[in-house]
């Protein structure tokens, strides 16, 4: 093991170097640029065997990844914000063609107005594209998630999008425990595609026209693969603990055992929430928090279990789902708890375009929950937090 000081982007590049993928096709976009830039240095310095494809857009980046993955290679890239949006069409192609591509997303707001800072509207918009989505809280998790993602993708036969907060994680230098190269290599093993396009002895057609007679069967396969991925994520997390000492599951709890009030967040805000919970506990308020790590497939049973004893829940969404009843995480969690919990579930939309969220904000959320729990009344189910 090596202890390194790295920002999130450099940690992604470093993990990619250790993974040594066959092909990386990438295009720079803030706040992901450093990762692809750093990785291309590793390529230029001959530290990896990767074929680096410098493309002209993100649509092309994902297209090149799809071609390379279909050809039988282990393929990676990374993007953010408008770059992810520009890949839209190809995201679905990658997932539906069941290609195990790994793409780190450094979460950033979508235009307009143009903004380069963190929120989750980019990856949350892609939540139905068939990609497995894992959210990391800090640089260490960003590093750990990308290594696990390779194994998850190849076992599940689905692409994986590990995500972390742009700038907050991507540009913050933190202490990272990096595994030895050999350990990473053994953990991910050698990728062997089942039907590589380059196997001329066994010709295969990728991406044929699919009519109403079989399209639905292919969607059903994808549906089942996504369901099966839940166990794969858990198993890979356990296996990773053996080599790293750090355990990973679909979610993690903080003081939830005896809590009546719960705050749920993903990404870096989960850390802020833990801090706020600890401060409120000192004041005698029975709060806890839950960090969601896996968003796709959605671990609804784990969520039900974790929240079974709480009376009031605040779901923190770092993006809006305009016109919907709350943000994306809120809708899913409320739906997961339907008929299994009597808790009131409210939603806070926060941190858009990089708007800071502090422990004071979360403490206000916990106070609101306390009011709901004592009065039984909810003033507003969905509200913006920290807006003027």
């Amino acid at each position, binding site marked *: 093991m090596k202890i390194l000081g790295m920002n999130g982007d450099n940690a992604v590049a470093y993990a990619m170097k250790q993974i040594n993928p066959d092909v990386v096709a990438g295009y720079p976009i803030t706040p992901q640029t450093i990762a692809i830039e750093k990785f291309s240095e590793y390529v230029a310095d001959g530290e990896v065997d990767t074929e680096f494809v410098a493309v002209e857009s993100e649509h092309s980046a994902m297209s090149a990844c799809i071609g390379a993955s279909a050809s039988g290679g282990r393929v990676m890239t990374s993007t953010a914000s408008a770059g992810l949006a520009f890949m839209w069409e190809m995201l679905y192609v990658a997932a*539906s*063609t*069941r*290609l195990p591509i790994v793409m780190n997303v450094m979460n950033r707001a979508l235009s307009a107005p143009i903004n380069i800072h963190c929120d989750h509207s980019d990856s949350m918009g892609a939540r139905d594209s068939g990609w497995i989505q894992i959210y990391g809280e800090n640089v260490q998790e960003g590093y750990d998630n990308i290594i696990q993602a390779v194994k998850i993708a190849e076992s599940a*036969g689905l692409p994986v999008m590990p995500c972390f907060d742009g700038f907050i994680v991507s540009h913050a230098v933190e202490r990272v425990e990096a595994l030895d190269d050999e350990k990473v290599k053994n953990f991910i093993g050698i990728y062997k595609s089942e*039907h590589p396009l380059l196997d001329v002895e*066994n*010709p*295969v*057609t*990728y*991406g*044929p026209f*699919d009519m109403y*007679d*079989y399209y639905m*069967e*292919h969607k*059903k*396969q994808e549906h*089942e*693969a996504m369901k099966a991925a839940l166990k794969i994520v858990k198993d890979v997390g356990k296996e990773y603990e053996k080599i790293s000492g750090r355990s990973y599951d679909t979610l993690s709890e903080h003081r939830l055992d005896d809590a009546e009030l719960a705050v749920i967040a993903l990404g870096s805000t989960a850390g802020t929430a833990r801090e706020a919970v600890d401060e409120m506990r000192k004041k005698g308020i029975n709060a806890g928090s839950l960090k969601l790590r896996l968003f796709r497939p959605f671990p609804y049973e784990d969520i039900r279990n974790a929240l079974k004893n709480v009376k009031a829940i605040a779901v923190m969404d770092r993006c809006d789902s305009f016109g919907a009843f709350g943000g994306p995480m809120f809708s899913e969690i409320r739906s997961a708890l339907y008929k299994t919990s009597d808790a009131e579930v409210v939603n806070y939309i926060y941190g858009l375009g990089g708007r800071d969220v502090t422990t004071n904000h979360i403490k206000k959320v916990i106070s609101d929950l306390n009011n709901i729990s004592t009065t039984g009344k909810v003033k507003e189910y969905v509200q913006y937090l920290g807006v003027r």
Partner: protein
Amino acid sequence: MKGWKEIPDGGLILEPGNSVEYKTGSWRAKRPVWDKEKCINCLICWIQCPDNAIIVENEKIRGINYDYCKGCGICASICPKEAISMEEEK
């Protein structure tokens, strides 16, 4: 027809050349009818047919393969001798 467990993942086709199993003849609204008397065996229709549905033996037209002819009418419009006419499918 096969269920989702019986087909390759991701829409892949593992058997090459399997389009012979797909009888496009069912798409046909109009049927090309070939008149042997008018035909001079220039083979233009054979070259132009997008579905390889003109049957040729020893460099001579033998007829039309209605299993695959989808009735596009290219052969009829391209024939210099008007030896192919399009008739309503009954």
